[in-house]
């Protein structure tokens, strides 16, 4: 099964929030809702011996996706073609069970439409992409990336299928030492959701603390 997700290099991320705004324009998100957030983790320590990192958080594309399990109408589902967790707004009744089920708080209730929304990995433009952007044609469906990835001011974001070793996401993880290395992390998983999204952070920048501020 495909594991399409974002991989984020926190050694590079400077916390500029451009991903949030790129996402809002692309997906027409109302004021106050965010499919992507950037958390400042730290500074920890005591001035001047301090360290910190920024942690962008969005739908983690969990393998066990509790949001899909709790949805009473089938509105939360996986794309049959590429396994991306999505929401069919036509089926969503706005019960918000999924918001409570999500361990990462990345689902948002759209008050105007009465439905739940979240990061789709911009599946409307990336459904068949391998994440290796075609710089001569950024709309090329085989290689398109979400605007949060394309515009990222630090090239800290990578997109693709972790099951495909040639995807941009897989290559970024590989370059950082691979899954299980000291630099590759994922968010804490007390509920067993198995988040797919990976984060790269070197100990020289800061010790990994997940979302713990």
């Amino acid at each position, binding site marked *: 099964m495909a594991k399409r997700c974002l991989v984020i290099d926190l050694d590079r991320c400077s916390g500029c929030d451009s991903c949030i705004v790129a996402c809002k324009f692309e997906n027409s998100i109302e004021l106050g809702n965010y499919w992507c957030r950037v958390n400042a983790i730290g500074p920890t320590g005591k001035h*001047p011996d301090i360290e910190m990192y920024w942690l962008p958080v969005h739908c983690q594309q969990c393998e066990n996706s509790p949001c899909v399990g709790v949805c009473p109408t089938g509105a939360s589902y996986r794309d049959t073609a590429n396994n991306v967790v999505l929401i069919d707004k036509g089926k969503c009744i706005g019960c918000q069970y999924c918001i409570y089920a999500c361990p990462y708080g990345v689902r948002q209730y759209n008050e105007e439409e009465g439905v739940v929304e979240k990061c789709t990995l911009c599946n409307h433009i990336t459904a068949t992409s391998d994440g290796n952007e075609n710089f001569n044609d950024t709309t090329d469906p085989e290689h398109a990336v979400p605007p949060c990835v394309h515009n990222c001011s*630090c090239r800290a974001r990578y997109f693709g299928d972790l099951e495909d070793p040639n995807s941009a996401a897989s290559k970024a993880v590989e370059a950082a030492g691979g899954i299980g290395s000291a630099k590759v992390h994922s968010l804490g998983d007390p509920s067993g959701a198995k988040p797919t999204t990976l984060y790269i952070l070197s100990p020289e920048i800061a010790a990994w603390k997940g979302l713990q501020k």
Partner: protein
Amino acid sequence: MQATLTRRSFVKAMAAVGAATAVSTSYSSALSTTDKAWAATDSERTMYVSCCHGCIQVCPCKVYVENGVVVKIEGHPDGPTSQGSLCLKGLNQIHTCYSPRRVLYPLKRTGERGVKDAKWERISWDEAVELAASKIFEAIKKEGTYSFMVSVGGGGSYSFMQAMTLPMALGSPTVFEPGCAQCYLPRNAAAAYMYAGADQSIADCAVLEPFKGLAPKEIAKGVKPDTKVLVLWAAQPSVSQTAQSGRGMAELRAIGCKTIVVDPNFSPDAVKATIHLPVRPGSDAALILSWYRVILDEELYDKDFCRFFTNIPFLINPDTKLPWTAAEVFDGHVDPDPSTPAYVCYDQISKSVQPLPYGDPAVLKTQIDPAVVYEVEVKGKVSRTAGKVYRDEADPWTLEKTEEFCWVPADRIREAIDLYAKAEVAGIANGVASDMEETASQVPFGLMGLDMIMGYVNKPGATLTQNTPAAPGGPRPTHNWNGFSGMFGMIFGIGYQTGATPEQNEARIAAIPDEWDPSSPVPPFMTKTWLYALNQLMIDRLGMKNHKGLYEWCHSHIPTVREAIETGEPFHPRVWFDMSGNKFAMLGSAGAWYNAIMNGGVDFIICQYPMMTSFQIECADLMFPMEEWLEATGATEFGQLNYSFPCPGVIHLGETVPNTVPPQRVCNATAALLNDYIEQGNKVVFGFEGAKVGVASRNNGSYYHGNTIDTSKLRFPLGMGVMGGANSEKESWTAHIEKFKAFPNLAPKLEGVTDREGMLKAMANDPDFYGVTPPDMYWIYDQHLVPAADGLPTGFATESRKCEVYVQLAIKMGRTGFPYCYPIPQEAVDPSVATFDGDYSPICNVPKQKEVPASLSDPEGFAEDPSDEFPLALTSGRVYYFHHGTMRHAPFAREIYPVPDVRINPETAAKYGIAHGDWVEISSRRTQGEPYDPVTRQGTKTAEPIRGRAYVAEVVAPNVVWMERFWNPECFDNSVPAEKRTGGWQECNVNVITNAVDCRFNEVFGSYTNRGFAVNIKKSTKPDLVWTEPKEFAPFMPNNENQYTPADAGVAINNAALLTPIVEFNDPPTTMTGGF
């Protein structure tokens, strides 16, 4: 016809990706009357290439247009530094362009000044130009040419050359921008003084070398990065130029470049730094001197470069403070070429004082070994080398003492010095902080000097590199001091030419004709009379007596302009043409400015800006509508490294025009009125009627004008008229097309292209759409070593032909205005202002600091009047979301960063009972005491305290608070009842509490104090009108309302009347008249 469209559905329509059905049908009907270029696109999406102007740098981008509406912007991958990145300032330009706050037609104020009575009437362009011209004409007729003044905004703003030349064309010396002395001028000028080369500013695109060879396509060409260590001294590229230098920094760090970041704030670049030095705000000069102390004592400097390509070994005459010349010291010494004089050193081979000729280090070092730090008697006077002068100044600044004063651990300072000084190659990129402090000259002198003594000059990987080739066999390099380092020829005057002899300079003046002469070898507008008038404009410019460094950019001293408005002395600017955004957010001591204007100090204020800000809503009497960058063509000339990208406007709204148009048209209309008046036999005063001749104003003003210029022959516009631009949109496009035709790869594509539509189409889908300078013509090193015509290394365009670490020019400048005030010298600086025993300091020193926090331990007395009432040091710095005063109306920025954070250390916050997220009141001397009286100069209070929201974290040291500039356009939103509205500049604006009133101005540049001064804080509450919740910003979303245009005019994005072709004027452009 105006279809209705809710905000929500508008946004959805804008963002509908590849889904034509989502586009409201009202779009196509609305577009039926727009020009064919857009109508032809139907609902298809067209991509155009342009450049973001959201900050001072330029990121190429792709702009997608549907039915004449910009629906998406993304970074263009071909940017060699940005590589496809585009930050939120760029992305949010859609909301800027289509903001309900846009000014889309000329507007005339119909009510009284002040936000509560703000009412506007739409008028025609002709009426607007006539109104502006008549007001300027009336003022000049009544009181003379000095009654007019101009101001503009800093980098990334909408005008520059127009603002510089408009007052000159009408005979006025008064122009300013809130940046200048407070942003970049000091660093830019320091580089000119010290080696006539590129400066250390990374934000202003001077530092390019570190970003070389980072992009894959550059690597493919064999271009490699060389910078091993980069010092970001008070610069935060990741915030200020997020997608360009910020991206460059991310790439540079990723390939292993080490960074040292000097910043009181834990900025993103500090977070990623190898070493972070969180210096106490305002104490940088001491930290710099601690570096000199170590580097000189341990001889870590580049010995060859330091001895033979800097003036560090020159022996200094203690009486003149200038280097001894060999001709002064050695009888019979004659320089083979007087333009390259020999100076004097202590030679460690012969153990004697010897001439130090200029020459090839490889040859010289076999003959002479000049001491760097030495003291010896010369002509009976104990004389120190410049190096010794520096070492003595640095003596108090041991690492331990520096730790106490600067609040940085000594061992960490030492670690940084080692990393910098022991690197194979390194460089310093110097940011804006010192420009905003008393040490505006000292810090850049010190930091330029460090790179120079280290020999990090014209070397691969160094920041002090030039991207232009030397000319083998060329002349001894010279430098013109007539404003902007001679970049614009003689338009600002003739200035002295360093590197040339006095005789050669006299010959330059002799070549100027008495009368206008088209066949003259100098520009035809330059006559002896005009030269005299230009020189007089310089000398009369407000505040120049004490702060002559401002001549580098030909700007007035801002606090002195305010005083002139307040008191009418030494002359009274009556009509003000401002060409930028929110003056109240950007000018120090904003309350004093507000009071000066509202108390009747200015008769008429003309503004041009794309947006209504606090300044315009409170003060503008007339408003010209400007294009935003999505409409504006070629508004900026910067490229990205060796790439030059076209910046065409892609859409057009209402009656907006390029920034160049109103100054041109107003100037011409005013000139016509003045010329008629003179031709009728009337006299126009070139100067100010009734001003006292030869009387200096109380603070910094000088006014020496004798009104002796005969104006009977005078015809306006003077000199070159308004420079920098087009008289119309068509001219603007033509110039842009011509510029890119100059690139060989673009010339064939632009063949026959003459208009907007043609260029947009030619560039849109062409992968080879930009101009590029070949890498080997751009990444060039060792220019100073290339042999010149005299057989010597080319060297630098300074008096000594070397890097002048000891800024000998500054000594001369303070005394006579040399090299700017030429041929007529200016009176000397007031000795009480100058910190080097009555002269401008030629080296980095630590002047007494005013308003330092009482928390500083200062047994040596560097602090002047520390006050227990203000125990904390305040500093500032950009946030990602905004550039200068822009974009506070952008809802996707404001919902994330609604109000300014006040960064406070937890220890300090606890002391004041402040929790994270609490509202905090911040006060300074500007919000305390008796009201400031500009006439008696008694009192200090100019406004009420400001407020911000506490961000409590270890991001700053205890006793430091950090807060960025802000203003709140919601305070005058139409949704607020008129009687409750405010201008939105008092609530959260740190410039209310900064000191441009009675601070210690930097001696050379007159910079006032925006950072490093003392404040107090206390827990407070949210200001009533300020929005903090995301949904509150809904009125800022593009919609069917425009706040400033009557409903019948039609506004907003789906209105056919608004989607317009360019504005055209019927009258022909005027030609240059010759002035005098």
